[in-house]
């Protein structure tokens, strides 16, 4: 199967060589189409990583360039993302911060090397990109520091109605980060089924529970 892909790819490129013989480049739109065809010809499915992972939705497509999308498109991406957020039916937003810390440390999940795409086997990979607990020195910096996340936002009592907006925003951000920034680098953990609701509750607790080490 892989071999077939390589052969097809070679034929496609060879056919284009004739057209490319003269010195000018194809138009930008033609190159976009060629790049898409190149992706389809170059990849093949393996394990849980199927070819539909290359099918881009509006946001993925619009954020696939060094140039950000127009404000209109960005607004549409954010509006659709916001509408996609599934809020907890029972109104329960907070789980166990200890489990949340384990998730934040765990970078497994969704690659072709994994046996299952079920979220229960996935981690959140949070430390890959964020500082979170002060005791963990090995943290990335692609995302902002989340140390003292709840404390800095004045969350002293999670049942206090004053804490509701930040709790809801945090749920939404984890569920679908693109609701608040169209081209956010952060995965859409709920929307893309990377984590289940219980796991998101645990991650929420890590960030917001006043007892979590993050808020000490």
């Amino acid at each position, binding site marked *: 199967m892989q071999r077939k892909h390589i*052969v097809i790819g*070679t034929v496609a490129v060879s056919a284009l*060589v004739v057209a490319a*013989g003269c010195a000018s480049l194809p138009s930008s739109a033609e190159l976009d189409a060629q*790049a898409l065809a190149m992706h389809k010809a*170059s990849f093949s499915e393996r394990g849980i*990583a199927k070819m539909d*992972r290359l099918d881009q939705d509006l*946001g993925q497509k619009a954020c696939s360039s060094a140039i950000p999308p127009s404000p209109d498109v960005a607004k549409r991406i954010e509006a659709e993302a916001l509408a996609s957020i599934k809020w907890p039916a029972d109104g329960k937003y907070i789980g166990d911060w200890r489990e949340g810390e384990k998730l934040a440390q765990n970078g497994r999940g969704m690659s072709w090397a994994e046996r299952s795409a079920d979220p229960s086997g996935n981690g959140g990979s949070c430390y*890959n990109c964020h500082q979170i607990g002060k005791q963990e020195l090995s943290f990335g910096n692609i995302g902002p520091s989340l140390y003292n996340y709840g404390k800095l936002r004045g969350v002293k009592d999670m049942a206090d109605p004053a804490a509701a907006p930040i709790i809801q925003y945090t749920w939404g951000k984890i569920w679908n980060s693109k609701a608040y920034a169209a081209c956010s680098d952060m995965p859409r953990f709920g929307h893309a089924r990377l984590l289940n609701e219980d796991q998101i509750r645990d991650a929420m607790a890590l960030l917001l529970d006043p007892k979590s080490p993050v808020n000490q």
Partner: protein
Amino acid sequence: MKIVLIASALLLTLTAGAQTKSTADGIAEYRKMLEDGNPAELYEAKGAALWKRPRGPKNVSLERCDLGLGPGVVKGAWVQMPRWFADTKRVQDLESRLLTCMETLQGFNAAEIAKTSFDRGEQETIEALAAWISSESRGQKFALPQGHAEERRFYELGKRAFFFRGGPMDFSCASCHGVDGKRVRLQDLPNLTKNPGDGIGFAAWPAYRVSSGNLWTMQRRLNDCYRQQRFPFPGYASDVTVALGVYMGVNAKGAESIAPALKR
């Protein structure tokens, strides 16, 4: 034994360094310690011998293989690849080109080798050859040709591949390698949209990886990037991998190659 020692040395350097200096400093120090003992040298020696040895169904050596500078010219070839090859009418990176030479000169089946897992069969041959061929350009600066229209087209396709977001995590190459000063955990991420500096990024592969205890070619490096991007499986020497090589290599113009390097 040597590898265990190396791994413990790295661990010690990292642990000791955690409080007082960055991991990057620790790794640099560790590299310095091993400067005369990069295990990649074993691969280089093996590759040099394999180049000259008659092999394959035709029992011929690779000494007439053209890596872009004429048949048999190895010095300087690595820092000018991927490039256009008139005989295959394709833009090829080193590994794609070695497949061509192994098929046309030696009679191997290139498609079979492309399907073979890393570290197995003739893939091992390519790993050793890549180590030796890249070492023959050590200290030279990257200067990929962009004279042919196909080379320029592949740069444009590579740029699009670099920024292509997909998969369940919405990642592209640019998610990690699009700006300066970023890290995943403690691993520094080179900005590959420009020349990230001598011996960094494109100018550091192939490399011996201490964490896996073997030599990784650029194809294997890209394959593992795509695994972490949660993409489907990139074909070995497929167009998307070659196009990314053109994009990164052209951007790295002027960067000094230290390959085969030593990596964590």
